[in-house]
């Protein structure tokens, strides 16, 4: 493997949830480096801590203990508003449930992250249309989520995650709500982003077939990384 610049570093990260009296350790001393341009799949059984890990990498949550570095910044030391900006600019989220805003059109949904970064209107619209084209939805950009199929909604969500041209795409079970054909399309799209747009992709899945699209597979069990392997059977996608 080539020596590349570290993008995300987890150093002895613990996440312990407090459930009333009971403490639930979801991550127990996880350490890992993710490099720029990598395509990583995180796998593991349900409850093994995959989502918890992704939330931490995505600055949606802070660890109970340990440090997380994103582009060499220790996010556990950042102020809320700085964290929001960092998140908005460097990370694009794609969720299982698409998480589009229902009252807005596809275009407006994609514009939102740009407006949050105060990009000027003209530039923002150009950029939004560009990413909608990339996911093949330029003809549906005035549709609301309810007027789109699941796969199309997920593509809007991918377009939204790409809007700010982030370095990292975080995808949590993005095909979980889709049939296998549509799921494959989405996987192709992620692969394309990785290959052609040089995005770093971190994908959560419990489907080993999907994990095979990735370059590196990290396996979690009970909050601990039990295996990090180079995937030599990587699924090839023609683009």
């Amino acid at each position, binding site marked *: 493997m080539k020596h590349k610049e570290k993008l995300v570093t987890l150093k002895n990260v613990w996440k312990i949830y407090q459930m009333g009296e009971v403490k639930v350790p979801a991550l127990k001393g996880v350490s890992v480096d993710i490099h720029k341009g990598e395509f990583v799949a995180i796998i593991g059984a349900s409850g093994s801590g995959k989502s918890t890990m992704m*939330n931490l990498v*995505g600055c*949606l*949550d802070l660890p109970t203990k340990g440090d997380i570095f994103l582009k060499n910044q220790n996010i556990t030391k950042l102020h809320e508003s700085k964290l929001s900006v960092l998140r908005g600019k460097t990370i694009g*989220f794609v969720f299982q449930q698409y998480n589009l805003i229902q009252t807005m059109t596809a275009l407006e949904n994609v514009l939102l992250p740009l*407006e*949050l970064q105060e990009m000027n209107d003209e530039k923002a619209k150009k950029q939004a249309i560009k990413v909608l084209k990339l996911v093949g939805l330029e003809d549906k950009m005035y549709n609301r989520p309810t007027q789109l199929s699941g796969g199309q909604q997920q593509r809007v969500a991918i377009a939204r995650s790409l809007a700010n041209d982030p370095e990292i795409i975080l995808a949590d079970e993005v095909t979980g709500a889709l049939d296998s054909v549509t799921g494959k399309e989405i996987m192709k799209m992620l692969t394309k982003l990785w290959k052609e747009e040089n995005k770093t992709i971190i994908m959560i899945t419990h489907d080993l077939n999907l994990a095979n699209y990735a370059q590196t597979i990290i396996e979690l069990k009970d909050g601990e990384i039990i295996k990090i392997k180079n995937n030599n059977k990587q699924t090839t996608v023609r683009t």
Partner: protein
Amino acid sequence: MKLRKSLKFAINMVLHSKLRSWLTILGIVIGVASVIAIISLGEGMKQSLNSQLGGLGGDLVTVSPGFSSSSKFTHGRGPGGGGGSSSVATEEEVVLDRGDLQALKGISDIELMDTQVRGSVDVSYLGKKGSVTLTGVDQKYWAQITISEIDEGRMLGPADQNVIVIGGKLAEGYFDQPIGINKMVTIEDMAFRVVGILDDSSTSIIMPIMMAYQVIDDKETGIYDSIIIKIKDEENLDLVVEKIENKLKMIRHVTEKTKDFSVSSNKQTQEMIAEFMSSMTMFLTAIAGVSLLVGAVGIANTMFTSVLEKTKEIGIMKAIGAKNKDIMTIFLFNAGLIGLVGGVIGVIFGIILSSLMPIMMSGMGRLGSETVVSINSIILSLSVSIIIGMIAGVIPAYQGSKLKPVDALRYE
């Protein structure tokens, strides 16, 4: 996020809001509409009072027999205005007479005086009968002292006897036929010629006092219902009023406690009525304000529910880069918009209500016959409703902004 974008987002939220938001808006509508209606009614009353009492007659002082606080009001209308009742609730009849007039003549600050009697008389014109208020005035001075103005014909003059000046409404619209200049009107079986018509909407009749004693049933010659005094210098008003009081107390052998007459100036009366009106308006506005407050509680309630409902969206927004500040602003704008929309609709309803009010209140006579919606009251109620909305939204908005992104995203 730019404020403009936050506003756009908030507008989108209001436009897509549920019936609940519109009910909340209704609460504000009711509050604002009643505030506007009440203020405009008060403003209308103030303006119609001012136009009736005018800035005129600031140098006039009215002396009337009897002393009670209510007599001040009824005599405040000024000379010739009609409509004032002279009944004063005292055990034995107190009157003003020549002795009082004589005493007042000694005060050098007085320019001239008009003695008046008032009573209800039967009038007939071309076979139609009616009953109106008649004022007998000292025709030598009345024309110089009255604040009434002539519309047609002339005022009474020193040599007049069997002539009258009549109110505008009596001339036009009281009898079937309008009464013109030089027409003869029968008052208590005596015939009078109309020489002037006043520029007002009263049904009163003004005639020389000597004739009035003859037509009004129970008025003895030399007894006055009021003495209207024009003073030389308006600046000295308070001082002259005091002089008049003291002089009359002396001549009538009364003290402050046993005082059996009252001295009032147009100015004082005007000020008193204005003060009364504005405190009345303030009181009613406060009541209407309470409904606005209830509306505010409604907004707060709706906002709390809205934040809860939008928890997931807050999570999404944060995941794609929204700061706490952005969320806070959006919800504040949302609350302010609910206030604004409620305010605008409320203002519209308020204006409609204000224009209907004169019709609804036609039974109340002159007061309430006019409402004035001032720009100030509109601006005031609009800004109050926006501010109220925002204040009501502060805590919910803050709560929403503080949500942790993970927790918000997990919310279903």
